[in-house]
């Protein structure tokens, strides 16, 4: 299945802004992040506090819904999903 990935703000300094990825049935957000981690050097350190533990500020939207309110990293991927990764900025 095909999933469209979009990255915003400072994530764009270590990865592409948007692209498609293919996954087998049963893949989850965790699978996607592991793939990205392998694909982009520096992304793992930016996103993960420890292996398998996302940094608090990494917000992941599946079709406009924050996975924080779904099943977190275990949220399943579906064909045609748009996954947005954004670190909210904070300064004023």
């Amino acid at each position: 299945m095909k999933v469209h990935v979009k990255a915003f703000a400072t994530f764009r300094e270590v990865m592409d802004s948007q692209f498609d990825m293919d996954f087998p049935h049963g893949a989850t957000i965790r699978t996607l992040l592991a793939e990205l981690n392998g694909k982009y050097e520096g992304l793992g350190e930016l996103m993960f506090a420890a292996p398998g533990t996302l940094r608090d500020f990494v917000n992941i939207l599946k079709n406009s819904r924050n996975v924080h309110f779904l099943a977190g990293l275990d949220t399943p991927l579906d064909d045609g999903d748009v996954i947005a990764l954004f670190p909210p900025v904070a300064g004023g």
Partner: protein
Amino acid sequence: MAVLSKEQKERYQRQIAVVGEDGQEKIGRTRLLIAGAGGLGSTAALFAAMTGFGTIRIIDPDRIEETNLNRQLLFREADIGRPKADTAAKALHTMNSSIDIEPVMAAIGTAPARDLIRGIDVVIDGLDNYPARFLLADAAWKCGVPFIHGAVEGFYGQVCTIIPKTSPCLRCIVPNPPPVRETPIIGVTTGIIGCIQVTEAIKLATGTGSPISDHLWLWDGIRQKSDRLKIERIPTCPFCGKDEYQIPAGERVR
């Protein structure tokens, strides 16, 4: 029904051509709270004053430091050490002496958020951390006052307008905020984002267009790209999804 004075018609002639006399009169009747007199707040306050918002209440607990001068355009070198809120009010008065400017030297969290919002029509977020944003945004939601969120880091910025009871709340949009820290900021980005926030306030005051209320508007100054990231209201959101919100430990809304 417009009730602009001859002086107001003269002063705002070029923008009355955009918003009409009725729109200008609505702007004049709108009372803004600008939370923070930093990069976003000073930009927003300057344009709000020039646009003719009738009341601008500007809140900041701090004094001006040399490191503020790369972005906080209401302040001059001679102002270092002076209170931000009072100094901002004096600067705004020199730009437009016909509007009411209320400086408040207080921090969100020490001053009761509901008191700060009392009598206010629209809040502009010029804060620099999420604990303070949540306090003020929660109070604005409960008081039925729109909250125009803005934030920056480096060349990146974000804006969304939170309309109580209809749009996603700030906790739906940013359930996982970044930690409080000193953020790298370049002045042009606070200029861009502060201006977008005042644009939102003008739209709300005059009923023009649609606010950025069901998505987050993201600015990327490196690639000159803006994106609209649609965000849905979360039915199970711990704040807006329930009638009785349990305040997390360590936070207080007074």
